[in-house]
């Protein structure tokens, strides 16, 4: 047991290195981004589902929309409150949320997710070419 002090020292160094990112970045967490709603979105008050649902589940919703439109050919989404929407990212979602940079991108950048929707789907249908 004569190496005890080396082992303890090594363990301490190991723990310090492993936890380095935790204590180094302590208190420096980036604040959650503020999303800006467009006037159209404010006026509409509700999205196709409740805000909480959209915050948590919009990716699943879009996935269902994608498969339904592309593979089944159905294009109308009837929300729980009975309103009908055309299932289209560019033409429905971004018609209201026409500020992609301040709405979609802010949160996606914060969460470090890089959806590749925009490789094909056009950002903003209202923008002039």
């Amino acid at each position, binding site marked *: 047991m004569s190496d005890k002090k080396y082992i303890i020292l090594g363990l301490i160094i190991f723990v310090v290195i492993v936890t380095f990112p935790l204590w180094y970045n302590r208190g420096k967490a980036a604040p959650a981004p503020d999303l800006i709603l467009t006037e159209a979105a404010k006026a509409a008050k509700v999205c196709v589902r*409740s805000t909480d649902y959209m915050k948590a589940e919009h990716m699943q919703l879009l996935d269902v929309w994608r498969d339904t439109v592309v*593979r089944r*050919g159905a294009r109308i989404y*009837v929300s*729980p409150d009975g309103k009908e929407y055309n299932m289209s990212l560019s033409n429905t979602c971004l018609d209201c949320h026409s500020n992609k940079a301040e709405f979609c991108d802010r949160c996606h950048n914060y969460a470090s997710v890089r959806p590749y929707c925009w490789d*094909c789907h056009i950002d903003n249908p209202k923008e002039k070419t």
Partner: protein
Amino acid sequence: MDSSRRRVLQLFGISSLALMTKPVLNAFAKEEKLTEEQPVVLKDAANALKAEQWAMVIDTREFESEDDFEPLIEACHQIHNVPHLENKRHEIKWIWGTHYHSAFPGKAARFLSEEVEHRPYLVLCNHCENPPCVRACPTRATWKRESDGIVLMDFHRCIGCRFCMAACPFGARSFNYRDPRPFIVQTNKAYPTRMKGVVEKCNFCAERLAVGQMPACVEVSEGKLTFGDLYDPASEVRELIRANYTIRRKQQLGTEPSVYYIV
């Protein structure tokens, strides 16, 4: 290891305790459900056009030169954001003109009417009833829609293997060797573009049929192209096929093309 009776009983006890932890873990694992489980309805638009098998009849007698195709090609390519690439090897085309021997190889009689031989022929995806491209696709990114017989593409799923291009006997499919966006002359904001590495082709304007409109080429053709349900005996296409002698491309291959040509 000491294998006394006491030890064995202890092991049994601990094992039965371990068996009881699963429901407890499940209870913890159950995530908090935000979502109100309301049923949502996904449906077609009321004015969507429906058919058992969409088909097109092209009256080739009405076309004098390839210039007559220009407005049709232009309308299609503009609506679908088809890029215009000069390089023939990178070219993307959904609908285009070709000459008789390319459109109908092996169909030429000796001393064929020169008028028929030199007439231009408009070609596009035939939306075959037995599409070989669909069988070739390893990811089911292309499939024949049961509801109306259109051979569709899911660009999300396409991995760009180009098996479908090899399988298609009509060359109806094009591959995006380059990012198409810089080559789109005028972007239609209502329709997505494609990205580098996917195959694309004519979709019989499925997105227009869904909102009650005829395909773009049919709309601008002023009656030279007719579109309708092949299995509806009263449809306009059936009327034309009955009244005129029509041919189809490479019929001997058994793919059953849905585009008919009046010659």
